[in-house]
């Protein structure tokens, strides 16, 4: 039996923290981009960002007001006990974090168009499940999907004649048309598969990877680097005011496709990429992988 009350409290506190402090890899990247920026207006925007993060930590407040609709990606060890209790506990954790953090009231009920101020509702938080063989731990990844960076999200199924060139065009078009509004520098996630829902899910999983990790296929890794350089050459700059970079990175995840289709999904993370990763054992000892040394 696991201590489900303790689990709920740990996740509630972890969520609150992840809305105030960015993951280590994102912070390091923003500092590097700021240092490398040469255009004065762009540099001043980076300075506002870094100042904001410092103030958010000091004042213990959500660094961006849009704390998103919460998504969980849970990877359950094959031997982890009481898995049936996890989903309700995650929902309760969101309810608590909404008051404790506090989080903005973001869940709007479909059709009834009501926001009851709890951040929980129909399929909210959204929970994705994976199973890890031979493991007795529970890995919980959290993501605050803000409105601005969810807005460019899209997917399309191309014909094979369009080729991977078609993917490149779709990504570049989406970034220039919609990336500006999504708070660049962005982390661009791309999913490639045989149907749109597979590609879309993979594109979100792509932005949960540690920044700069590479697709295991050398061609995939090469395509990530080509797109990173290409998007940076376009020079959207922070907030789209034009600058020396556009992105923090480009990650691609893939699944074998159907011979007749190439589906592409795109999801972007804003510069305030509020992703968290925590691994718990059955006694509720935990390790936070995204924010080393963070205390809850």
């Amino acid at each position, binding site marked *: 039996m696991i201590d489900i009350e303790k689990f709920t409290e740990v996740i509630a506190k972890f969520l609150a923290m992840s809305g105030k402090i960015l993951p280590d890899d994102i912070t390091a990247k923003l500092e590097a981009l700021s240092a490398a920026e040469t255009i004065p*207006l762009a540099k*001043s*925007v980076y300075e*506002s*960002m870094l*100042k*904001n993060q410092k*103030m*958010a930590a000091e*004042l213990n*407040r*959500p*660094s*961006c*007001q*849009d*704390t998103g609709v919460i998504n969980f990606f849970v990877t359950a060890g094959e031997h982890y006990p009481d898995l049936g209790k996890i989903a309700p506990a995650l929902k309760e954790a969101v309810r608590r974090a909404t008051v404790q953090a*506090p*989080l*903005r*009231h*973001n869940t*709007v009920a479909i059709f009834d168009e009501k*926001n009851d*101020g709890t951040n929980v509702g129909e399929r909210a938080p959204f929970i994705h499940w994976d199973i890890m063989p031979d493991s007795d731990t529970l890995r919980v990844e959290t993501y605050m999907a803000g*409105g*601005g960076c969810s*807005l460019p999200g899209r997917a399309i199924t191309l014909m*094979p004649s369009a*080729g*991977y*060139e078609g*993917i*490149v*065009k779709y990504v*570049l*078009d989406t970034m*220039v048309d919609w990336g*500006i*509004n999504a*708070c660049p520098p962005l982390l661009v996630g791309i999913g490639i598969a045989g149907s749109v829902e597979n590609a879309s899910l993979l594109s979100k999983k792509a932005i949960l990877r540690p920044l700069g990790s590479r697709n295991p296929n050398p*061609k995939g890794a*090469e*395509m990530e680097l*080509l*797109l990173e350089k*290409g*998007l940076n*050459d*376009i*020079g*959207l700059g*922070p*907030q*789209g*005011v*034009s600058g020396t970079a556009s992105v923090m990175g480009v990650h691609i995840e893939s699944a074998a496709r159907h011979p007749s289709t190439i589906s592409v999904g795109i999801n972007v993370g*804003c*510069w*305030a990429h509020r992703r968290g990763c925590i691994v718990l054992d059955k006694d509720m000892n935990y390790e936070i992988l995204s924010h080393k040394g963070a205390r809850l």
Partner: protein
Amino acid sequence: MKKTLKTPIPDADLADIKIGDVIYLDGIIVTCRDVAHRRLIELGRELPVDLNGLAIFHAGPIVKKNPDGTYQMVSIGPTTSMRMERFEKEFVRQTGVKLLVGKGGMAEETEEACKTYKALHCVFPGGCAVLAATEVEEIERVEWLDLGMPESLWVNRVKGFGPLIVSIDAEGNNLFKKNKVIFNKRKDEVYASISEKVKFIK
């Protein structure tokens, strides 16, 4: 020299401000986003705040209610202004608002509104919500609370509110539109160079 506008903003104060300038605001800025725009323009409901000469913020904040019934601004950053494009020209005409603050660019209708009725669109750096919240001296009142925390009209008194990057000036010049021409040109070059290297289907 730091340029600061004070509400109520006279048209004359906007005359020498150009796109790409960074300005600040003292006075009243009211949050106003999707549903508030729809209520005024599409449903014809009167706004409960007189915006003449004031500023609006395309934003949905996190606000804390104090035990004495007053409110504290916790976190407030801009939302995507483009969502309001459909309503903005008519909104500026009807309200006499002088400063539109949000993030990302806006398009032709807002350019025309800024030029015809003398107003500016500015960008507050997105995601910098604690920075903005600490520039709010006081929440004077709130209206249309039935819309929920993000969509309500929060009437804020601010001091040194910024940086505000001017994206559309009172002549109708548009910073993001100009940038986009350059971005699209570079995009074509980038596409040409990458597409040659990803011909994986052979």
